C-alpha cells in the first residue's frame, strides 16, 4: 500500500524554480529520507505535502486519497520543524494538548470560562490529559509537563516537538531536520530514538536532512534531491554502491568519492592519471569518461602496474582504525583520497611516492553527461579485474 504519493510536483517562487516535477512513492510504514544540499527545496516539498504551501502543479495523495484541496488540519499528517516551533507562551503539556483540544472540542467548548461549564468538556479534557501524559512518559519528558519551552534544553524541546506530533496519531510524520540544532552526541542518541519510534509506531516517516550519516543510518530508502528533482531513490546501501549519476556519487560518502577524467585507449584500456585501467570494451564510452573511486576502493601497492595509480603523498589524516592518505596524482588538481589500514602509518612519509591499486569491482564509470555507465542490470561495474 502507498503511504504518500507525490506526483509531478513543481513549485517556483517568483522566477526561481525550486521544484521541477518531483515524483515519489512512499510506502506505508516506510522511513524515507529526503537528502539534498542546503536550499534544494526539501523543506518546500515537505510543506507542500503538509498543505502549508500550494504547489504550482502536481498532486499529493495520502493513503490513496488526493489531499490537494484539503487544509493542513485535515490531511492527517504531523510535522516536526527544524526550529521545533513550540508555542513559547504555553507549557509543555498545553503545547502537546493543543492539537487534541482543537480536534475534540468545539469552538464554544474551548472558551476559557464558559467552556468548562458545558457538558462533556470535563471528561474530554481528562481524556486529553491522560493521553498527553502517556505520550510524555513514552518520550521521557513527563517530569517537564508544567515547564515553558524556554526552560528546556535543546534535546528536551525536540522531544516535546515530537510529542506534539505524536499525540494525535497521524498517518504520516514529516520531520524537517529535527536533529540539526543538537550537539553531536545528542544527535547520535536521538537518531536511535527516532528510529525506535518509527519501529514502534509503524507509520510512514518522511525525514528531511542534509546530513548523509543520518540518511544512511536511519532510512529504509533515501531519495536524493538535486536541482529540484529526485536524482535517485534507493536503499542506503544501493545509493552508496550504485549511484545513478555523478552528482549522487559526489553527495554521498565522506570523504568525497575520487573522480578522475579518463580517456579511452581502445582495446579495453583507459588512460587515467598517468597510468592505465583495464575495462570491458562492450561499453561505448564516447570520447571521455569519468572514473569514480571511493577512498576504500584503493589499496596500498608495492609497485606501479596495470590498474595501479601512482602519485606523491601530500599528507595523512588519522581517523582511529583507518587513515586517509591524500595523494597528488598527475592530471588532477584535487588530491586523491585513499582509506588505508592504520598499520601502514609507519611506512608513510610526506612527499614519498605512493602506489595505489584500484579494486576494480568497486569502481564506477560515468559518461560525459554524468550518468553512470553499467552493463545490463546496472549492478556490475565495467572495470575488469586484473589477474596478476
Amino acid at each position, binding site marked *: 500500500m502507498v503511504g504518500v504519493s507525490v506526483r509531478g510536483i513543481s513549485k517556483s517562487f517568483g522566477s526561481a524554480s525550486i521544484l521541477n516535477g518531483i515524483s515519489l512513492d512512499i510506502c506505508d510504514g516506510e522511513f524515507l529520507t529526503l537528502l539534498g544540499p542546503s536550499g534544494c527545496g526539501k523543506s518546500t516539498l515537505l510543506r507542500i505535502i503538509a498543505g*502549508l504551501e500550494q504547489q504550482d502543479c502536481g498532486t499529493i495523495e495520502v493513503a490513496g486519497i488526493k489531499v490537494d484541496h484539503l487544509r*493542513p488540519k485535515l490531511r492527517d*499528517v504531523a510535522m516536526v*520543524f527544524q*526550529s521545533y*516551533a*513550540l508555542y513559547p507562551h504555553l507549557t509543555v503539556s498545553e503545547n502537546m494538548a493543543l*492539537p487534541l483540544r*482543537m480536534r475534540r472540542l468545539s469552538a464554544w467548548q474551548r472558551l476559557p470560562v464558559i467552556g468548562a461549564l458545558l457538558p462533556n468538556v470535563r471528561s474530554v479534557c481528562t481524556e486529553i490529559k491522560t493521553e498527553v501524559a502517556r505520550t510524555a512518559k513514552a518520550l521521557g519528558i513527563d517530569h517537564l509537563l508544567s515547564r515553558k519551552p524556554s526552560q528546556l534544553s535543546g534535546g528536551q524541546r525536540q522531544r516535546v516537538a515530537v510529542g*506534539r506530533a505524536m499525540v494525535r496519531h497521524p498517518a504520516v510524520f514529516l520531520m524537517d531536520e529535527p536533529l540539526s540544532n543538537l550537539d553531536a552526541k545528542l544527535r547520535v542518541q536521538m537518531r536511535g530514538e527516532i528510529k525506535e519510534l518509527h519501529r514502534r509506531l509503524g507509520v510512514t516517516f518522511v525525514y528531511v536532512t542534509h546530513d548523509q550519516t543520518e540518511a544512511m543510518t536511519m532510512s529504509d530508502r533515501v531519495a536524493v534531491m538535486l536541482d529540484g528533482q529526485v536524482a535517485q531513490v534507493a536503499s542506503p546501501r544501493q545509493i552508496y554502491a550504485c549511484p545513478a549519476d555523478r552528482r549522487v556519487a559526489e553527495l554521498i560518502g565522506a570523504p568525497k568519492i575520487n573522480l578522475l577524467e579518463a580517456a579511452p585507449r581502445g582495446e579495453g584500456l583507459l588512460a587515467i592519471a598517468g597510468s592505465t585501467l583495464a575495462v570491458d570494451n562492450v561499453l561505448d564510452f564516447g570520447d571521455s569518461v569519468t572514473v569514480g573511486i571511493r577512498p576504500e576502493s584503493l589499496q596500498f601497492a608495492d609497485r606501479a602496474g596495470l590498474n595501479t595509480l601512482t602519485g606523491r603523498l601530500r599528507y595523512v589524516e588519522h581517523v582511529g582504525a583507518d587513515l586517509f592518505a591524500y595523494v597528488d596524482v598527475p592530471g588532477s588538481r584535487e588530491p586523491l583520497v585513499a582509506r588505508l589500514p592504520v598499520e601502514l602509518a609507519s611506512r608513510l612519509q610526506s612527499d614519498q611516492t605512493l602506489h595505489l591499486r584500484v579494486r576494480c569491482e568497486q569502481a564506477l564509470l560515468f559518461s560525459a553527461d554524468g550518468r553512470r555507465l553499467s552493463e545490463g542490470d546496472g549492478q556490475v561495474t565495467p572495470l575488469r579485474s586484473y589477474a596478476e
Partner: protein
Amino acid sequence: MTPRTKILSGLVRHVILLTTGSLVLVPFIWMVSLSLKPPAELFSSNFTLLPEHWFAVENYTKALTAAPLPRYMLNGVIVCAAILLLQIIVCAPAAYALAKIRFAGREIIFGFVLIGLLIPHQVLALPLFILCYWLGILNTYAALIFPFVVSPFGIFLFRQFFMSIPDDIVHAARLDGLSELSIVWRIMLPMSLPAVIAFSIVSVVGHWNDLFWPLLVVHSQEFMPPSLGIVTFANAETGNDYGPLMAGATLVVAPLVIAFFAAQRWFIEGLTAGSVK
C-alpha cells in the same frame, strides 16, 4: 578610567537626568501643591511647596461634589476600555494578514496603513463629525469611540511584531488545527504581549487625556470624559477658584499614574522577555 573620573561622570550624568526629570515634573508637582492650598495662598509671593494652612479636604470635596467628577471618570473608563478592546479586535487580525498571509496587493494596503499613520486626527475631524451626524450618534458614547476603532498605529505596531514571529510557528498552528483567527488570538497576540501592553498604554493615555474630539461631539455631562469635564468645571463652577480645579485635575491624572506604577515592573519584564528569545 580611574575611580575619580568614574564618580565624576556618574555625578554629571545624574545632574543632567535630575534636571530634565524635574523640568518635566515641575508643572505636575505645582498642580498637586496648588490643590492643597487655600485660595489666599495661591497667589502669595513667597514660594512654598507645602501650604501654610492645609486646604486639601475642602478643595477635593468641592472638586468631587461641585461637578460630577466621578461620573466623568466612569465615562473615561468606559470609553477608553471600549476603544482599546475594539482596537485590538480590529487591529490584530488586520496586522496578522499583513504580516503572515500572502495575497495580491498586500504591500499597497500596508502603504495605506502607513499613510493613515501620517494623517493627524484633527485633519479628519470635520468629515468624522459629519459622519457621526449622519449616523445619528452625536452626543453618545458611540461618537467618542467609533472614530478610534481602526488604529493605523496599532496595525503597524502589531504587524511589526508579528513579522518577527517565525513562520514555522504559524505552520505548526495550522497543522495543529487552529483556524486563522484562532492563530491570531491564541498564538500571535499572547506571543506579542509586550506590543499589546505598549499599545494599551499609548491608547489609554491618549484617549483618557484627549480633549479635542470630545469637545466637538459631546455636550451633555452624562457622556463627558474627564478632560472635557475639567474644562467645563473650570468655566462654569470655579471662576478664579483654582484650588478645587487643581484638585480635580489631580484626581483625573491619578488613575493613570497609579496604573503605570502598578504595571511598571510587569511592563518592563514584558519588554525584556520579548527581546530575549
